Structures are given as C-alpha cells and as structure tokens.
C-alpha cells in the first residue's frame, strides 16, 4: 500500500446513511472530470464509489446510519507507481474489520439478487485494495488510470485584484 503525507485536495465525509450517497457520487463525478476522466468514466467511478459506500454501510456498519465515512479524492501523477496519471479514491470507515482476502466478487453465472457490488467495483476501477486500519475499520483504495493526454497543467489559482 502506497501512502503520501500530503493532504488529498478534496475530502468528503458523510454519515453512513444511504440518503447521502448521492452527495458523495456528485462530488466524485465532478472531481473525476476535473482530473481528466471523460463523462462516462466519471459516472462509472461514481457508481464504483457508491457500491463501496453501500458495502461499508451494510457490512462494515451493519446498517447503522450515523457513523462516519471519509472519502479522499486525489489525482496521482506519473511516477514510480505507474507511467500514467491516475485517479485515486480512499474510503475509510470505523466499522467491523474483515479479512481483505474474504471480499471477493461472486460467480455471475448464478442468477440471484445481490452480490454484484465488488464485481462492479473491479470492472470500473483498475486497482482496488482493502486493508484493516488500526483497531477499528477498513480502508479501501481504488485507482483508475487517466489517459495521459487528459488534464492540462492547471497552475495555482491566480489572484485577482
């Protein structure tokens, strides 16, 4: 797991109630287009985030709806981690801890309601990793490559007088 000390440029914290999922998706989509993803990919990332948050609410917090979930958004520049820029989302909860290797997509050939979330997340994102954090809760890191042409050098905000 890579980690950097710099604060992510955007962080969203929601309580673990399904009604706030739409706010997190909306921020995610906007961050994604800003970072250089096209509209369809940005929507897909919003979906992957929604699935991850739904799992935190249902499994991590067992349906409790007033627990915190932190979501960090960042754009990682090309470097040792990869030759292309990438969008990175980190989701931190303070719920039940599970063995990351136990979180797997199910066989899609079986027709049954549910069990699609992890499959959707893996289809949309390029990399996705869970780990336990401290004494309580999990951190999920998901990344998606950004086509290298996308995103121009946007300097710091200019001061207007």
């Amino acid at each position, binding site marked *: 797991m890579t980690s950097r000390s710099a604060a992510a440029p955007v962080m969203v914290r929601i309580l673990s109630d399904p009604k706030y999922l*739409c706010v997190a998706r909306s921020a995610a989509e906007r961050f994604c287009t800003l970072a250089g993803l096209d509209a369809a990919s940005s929507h*897909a990332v919003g*979906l992957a985030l*929604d699935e991850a948050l*739904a799992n935190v609410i249902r499994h991590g917090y067992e349906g409790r709806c007033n627990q915190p979930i932190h979501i960090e958004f960042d754009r990682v520049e090309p470097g040792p981690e990869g030759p292309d820029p990438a969008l990175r989302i980190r989701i931190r909860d303070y719920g039940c801890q599970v063995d990351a290797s136990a979180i797997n997509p199910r066989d899609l050939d079986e*027709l049954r*309601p549910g069990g*699609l979330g992890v499959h*959707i997340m893996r289809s949309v994102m390029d990399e996705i990793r869970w780990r336990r954090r401290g004494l309580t809760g999990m951190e999920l890191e998901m990344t998606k490559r950004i086509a290298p042409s996308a995103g121009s050098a946007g300097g710091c905000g200019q001061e207007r007088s």
Partner: protein
Amino acid sequence: MSSYDSSAISQVRALRTPGGVQAVVVTLQGEVDLQHSPAVRQQLIDEAGKRPGRLVVDLSAVNYMDSSGVASLVETLQRVRGYGGELILVNPTARVRSIFEIARLDRIFRILTDLGEAMGE
C-alpha cells in the same frame, strides 16, 4: 434526526395487450440507489404478487441505478418467472444499461427500447 426529501419513484398502470395479455407497466424515475431501492423493490414485489401475465418496467426516466436497484429487478424477475409470467425492461439510458452489461445481466433480462413494442403481441 433530520428529514430529507425522498423523491417519488414510480407510477403504475394496468393495461391489456392487443393479444389480451394482462399487463402492468411500472414507471420508475430518479435515482434507484440504496436509498430508494427498498421502496422500488417493495413496489415491484407487490405488483408481481398480483401475477400479471406481463410486468413491464419503464426505466427511461431512471438517471441512476446501482447494484441494489439491479438486485430488486433480479428478485422480481425470479418471482415473475416463478409463476410463468414475463418481465420486460423498457428503454434504459446508456448509463443504466451499462450496469446490466457489467453484471452480465443484459442477456438474462429482456430489454426493449420501446414501450409500444413491450405492449405488442
């Protein structure tokens, strides 16, 4: 606890096809995510409980759906098949359609692009 707006998400019409099949058209709208899918699921299960020959779900006004919405439709499909009926999904947007494709359910569900077609036969 605060109270927040929860958009109405469906409308139901009972019809009969030209061939005389009893059909129910449920029109969903808005965002069918974990917040709204429990109500959608209940509505669909209720309609399936009346055992119409054809249950048509119009998705044209659904601008967002996640796996909880898809799960509601899978459960409905199983119930409708269980009594020998037919479930038809109509006119999902490209984005909603893509989630069926990701879940490889686009070949399991009958998905038509036109409500008229769904009401044909």
